[in-house]
């Protein structure tokens, strides 16, 4: 769009701001300045993303903005923004306790922006190759950040994440190549055969066998990033050992980005009548992840791993919903994804402060939180209530829609789904009880925390459970229609 002569391309902003910020943050020494700059940069990115509503650039062979990734871009930039606020206070505390030294903080902030850039790029890429590169970049940055504490556990987690991630990436690349191979005879050699807009249009005449093969590889490749069982192994440790803001971003955003990639390819297969339906595969993996993660919740002793597994569970539900397809299920899937991003990051904000005030992540060493730190405690409870799918919060609505719409179509699946949800709820509250209630355990020092991000997220989730603005609804419904 053009503002008093100066043409301004929001899309460029979404990509450029993080890069510039990363460069600056890499050199600036002072902690406070960098933290502020970090927040400023994410704010700008968010503004650019929002301005995408008003002027949407024409798709180029490399970049594309449509309704589908619009949803994701706004969500990503928003959570990136709030997380940067949270990370300011969090990292401050880490500096005080000396777990991080200034150079590492500088590195951390730079990496944060790079991560933002990578995710935004992955979202706006109109080219499957470019998207792949972006996701690989995002993976590498998060690997570095997970290992930032350089404890044995952190290195172990980072290494595990790195290896499993690389294999996933490799598989995804193979799938991408296969898609190209499938497209080439139809679209012709060269760039066009990797461009979304073209691919989706022509997908009807692709070689179904190649598409099937491609989808298998893509499902496993990007599914590793989504954290679907049995490809999930990296996820809990990466969440548990990295700095909490990164856990929040991982759960809240990176998983979504990978899922977004999957959705794109699902659309591709859906457009081809002869190819096998992607639905059943996604439904199976989704249910598997849900039930598996639900059972894993019971024996958790580390609070961040607990919620990491809950992320797996919810990714399972979302994948299931998209696998089921249909207007209601897709709508529910989108809603659930949004709600989960907001809620889970809010939970990690709370967990971060809890771990800081209690000085541990062991659930056994924290207790009676609602007595020692009422605000944190009740915030955490509210978050868990939300993530467990209880009203009045938004996930209740999405689960309501998923379950009820599924039961009418495939009762058995719905029963498995309900079983998983129930088991997960029981597991979550089993742990929550010992954290939030009972005789206070562990230190009860005052927490210098920034509650704003957490409660902003929770307020949004709450609002969604009660009232959703028609514009948003129309948008989601449109996207749900796109997903078919």
């Amino acid at each position, binding site marked *: 769009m053009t503002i008093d002569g100066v043409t301004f391309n929001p899309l460029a902003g979404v990509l450029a701001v993080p890069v510039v910020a990363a460069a600056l943050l890499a050199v600036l020494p002072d902690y406070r300045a960098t933290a502020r700059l970090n927040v400023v940069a994410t704010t700008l990115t968010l503004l650019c993303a929002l301005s995408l509503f008003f002027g949407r650039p024409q798709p180029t062979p490399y970049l594309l903005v449509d309704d589908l990734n619009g949803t994701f871009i706004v969500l990503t930039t928003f959570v990136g923004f709030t997380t940067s606020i949270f990370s300011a206070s969090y990292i401050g505390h880490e500096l005080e306790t000396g777990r991080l030294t200034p150079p590492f903080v500088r590195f951390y902030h730079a990496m944060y922006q790079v991560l933002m850039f990578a995710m935004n790029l992955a979202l706006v890429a109109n080219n499957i190759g470019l998207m792949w590169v972006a996701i690989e970049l995002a993976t590498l940055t998060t690997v570095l950040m997970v290992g930032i504490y350089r404890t044995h556990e952190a290195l172990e987690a980072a290494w595990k994440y790195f290896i499993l991630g690389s294999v996933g990436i490799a598989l995804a690349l193979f799938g991408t190549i296969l898609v190209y191979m499938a497209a080439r005879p139809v679209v012709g050699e060269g760039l066009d055969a990797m461009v979304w807009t073209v691919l989706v249009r022509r997908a009807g005449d692709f070689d179904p066998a190649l598409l099937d093969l491609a989808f298998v590889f893509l499902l496993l490749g990007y599914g590793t990033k989504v954290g679907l069982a049995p490809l999930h192994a990296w996820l809990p440790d990466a969440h548990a050992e990295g700095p909490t803001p990164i856990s929040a971003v991982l759960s809240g955003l990176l998983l979504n980005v990978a899922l977004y990639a999957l959705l794109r390819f699902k659309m591709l297969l859906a457009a081809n009548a002869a190819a096998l339906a992607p639905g059943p595969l996604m439904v199976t993996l989704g249910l598997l992840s849900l039930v598996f993660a639900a059972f894993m919740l019971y024996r958790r002793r580390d609070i961040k791993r607990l919620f990491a597994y809950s992320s797996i569970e919810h990714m399972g539900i979302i994948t299931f919903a998209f696998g089921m397809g249909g207007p209601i299920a897709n709508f529910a899937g989108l809603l659930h994804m949004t709600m989960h991003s907001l809620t889970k990051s809010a939970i990690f904000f709370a967990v971060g402060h809890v771990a800081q005030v209690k000085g541990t992540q062991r659930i056994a060493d924290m207790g009676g939180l609602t007595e020692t730190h009422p605000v944190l405690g009740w915030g955490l409870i509210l978050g868990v209530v939300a993530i467990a799918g209880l009203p009045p919060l938004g996930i209740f609505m999405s689960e*309501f829609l998923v379950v009820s719409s599924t039961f009418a179509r495939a009762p058995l699946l719905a029963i498995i789904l309900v079983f998983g949800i129930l088991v997960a709820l029981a597991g979550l509250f089993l742990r929550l009880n010992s954290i939030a209630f009972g005789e206070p355990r562990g230190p009860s020092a005052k927490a210098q925390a920034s509650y704003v991000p957490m409660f902003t997220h929770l307020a949004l989730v709450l609002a969604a459970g009660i009232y959703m603005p028609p514009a948003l609804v129309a948008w989601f419904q449109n996207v749900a229609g796109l997903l078919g």
Partner: protein
Amino acid sequence: MTLTIALAGTAALFALAALAVVLAGAAAATRIVYGACTIVTAVSLVAAAAHLLNAAAPLSLTLPLGVPWLGAHFRLDALSAFFLIVVDLGALCASVFALGYAEHETAPQRVLPFYPAFLAAMTLVVLADDAYTFLFGWEFMSLTSWALVVSHHRVPENVRAGYVYLIMASFGTLALLLGFGLLAGPGGLYSFEAMRGAPPSATLGALALVLALIGAGSKAGIVPLHVWLPLAHPAAPSHVSALMSGVMTKVAVYGFMRIVFDLAGAPAWWWSIMVLALAGATTVMGVLYALMQHDLKRLLAYHTVENIGIIFIGLGLALAFKAHGLLFTAALALTAALFHVLNHSLFKSLLFFGAGAVLTATGERDMEHLGGLIHRMPQTAFVFLVGCAAIAALPPLNGFASEWLTFQAILLSPQLPSWGLRILVPAVGALLALAAALAAACFVKAYGVTFLGRPRTPAAQRAAETDRYSLAAMILLAVLCLIAGILPGLFIDALAPVNAALIGARMPAQIGTQWLAIVPIAASRSSYDGLLVFLFMVMSGALAAAAIHRLASDRLRRAPAWDCGYPDLSPATQYTAMSFAQPIRRVFGTALFHARETVEMPPPGDTRPARLKVEMRDPIWDFIYAPLAAGIGAAADRLNRLQFLTIRQFLSLVFSALVILLLVLAIWS
């Protein structure tokens, strides 16, 4: 108009909850919150009562909330109006009671925000007219009451009770969710009008019934889904216990009725078999469990299970009669059930208030540590006695009136053509009679051990009469119990619109009958006049008293009790709750609860005291829930090994997944 008032009241309650969060810790918070609750519920109560008594046409309203393309539908018809009355009446009394009771609350900021929200949620359920709003209110009701159950969270039992409660509640909600999914169909027609418009086939309807029975039953406390109830209800503060037992279970009954009588289409006769069988079992199991208890509040909670059973017997009969087109009889059975809903909410609240008063006066819930309270807190003792007589179904109080109606309905069941029911119904009748007798026994125990006899502990000795707010609430309820007992005709007539809406027929009008008797079918067949019975008893009692005091002696001497020549026996020699229940435990408990009594009697010359040990098992927990929990735990342990694999093993997981998928592709045709 009424609907608007009710919704405004709900909104006000939500606002009040927010206010309570803000006020947290302020000294006046308690009075403000409960005072405001009293006013709001009173207004809403009056409005609802007016709506029901005028038999006004259903009102409906849609707000742009909830599921976007659907909106939040609200509807106030006769059924919702009646249950709204039950909710508001209970809430009103609880709020008044709490004005005094909650002064003793140690951590009010853990109760105040959730109490109004709880009330609001229950109102929401009753008013909801689409699946989302209904379940929203339903689950929010569970959530808020869970928060109230764990309000005294330092006691581990409470937290555990809350845990079990929350899981069972969510289980029920999910069952209902499936049920609504069934009724709404793949198109997602979530509004109740749409469901009424497209009733399911008989088999699907039966499935919906089963799901409703599981969903609503788990909230109402149908055996075997009742396990949470005796844990959770006593754990909450007493006014909340009263609400949960007296009102929330009724909201569950409402949910069941709304689905089964309104949405699930025309019933098939065999639907009622499940309901009746479960209800009969629930009735007797509940009272037997209660007899084995010596924790006062838990005993009351188990009696809630029993009374829910009685209510569902009525509902099952109504279903059976409706299925066979015997509409007037169906109306009779339904009236019996609804009337018992009201009655139970009255006397159960009263009893829980009494237990709360005892708790504040003595700090004890265990009857074995009480006794002789009638001397220390006479008013409480009196109203509690009224409650006991009412729940024990003694004429002329209200409990008897509704059970009498249920018996009349059972006596009409030979009209049923289907054999299964002909065999089942009399058996259920026997169970009901048995339960009634056992309930009487149980409340002899509860009242006798708690209020009569001599105090067993210093705490009981020091007890003092409770505050005036609590007394006011209890007296109000006691009076209502008496009125409902001696003038049941008025209530039956008030319930006519509900029957007309759900059954399509109503009981004959009672208002014209001589001396306000109730005549279900015909005077020659059966009739009962609580008023006359009451008057006769008063007259003959007064007559006897007057005559004796006038003509014979009215002198009176105090002397020690007969002690067989062992002077000043300690209070420990009195009968305790456990010993009182011993004969019944021996008759029923041996088979049902594997009750074992082991006596160790020291040999002659040995000065050790003899010991009697009683051990009992809960069959339902042992056979259903314990294995379930164990299974989940075992599965969790198995899967947990996956957390400790090495990277290579994880890679091999990925690898095998890939190979499997490729194989699938290879053999896919």
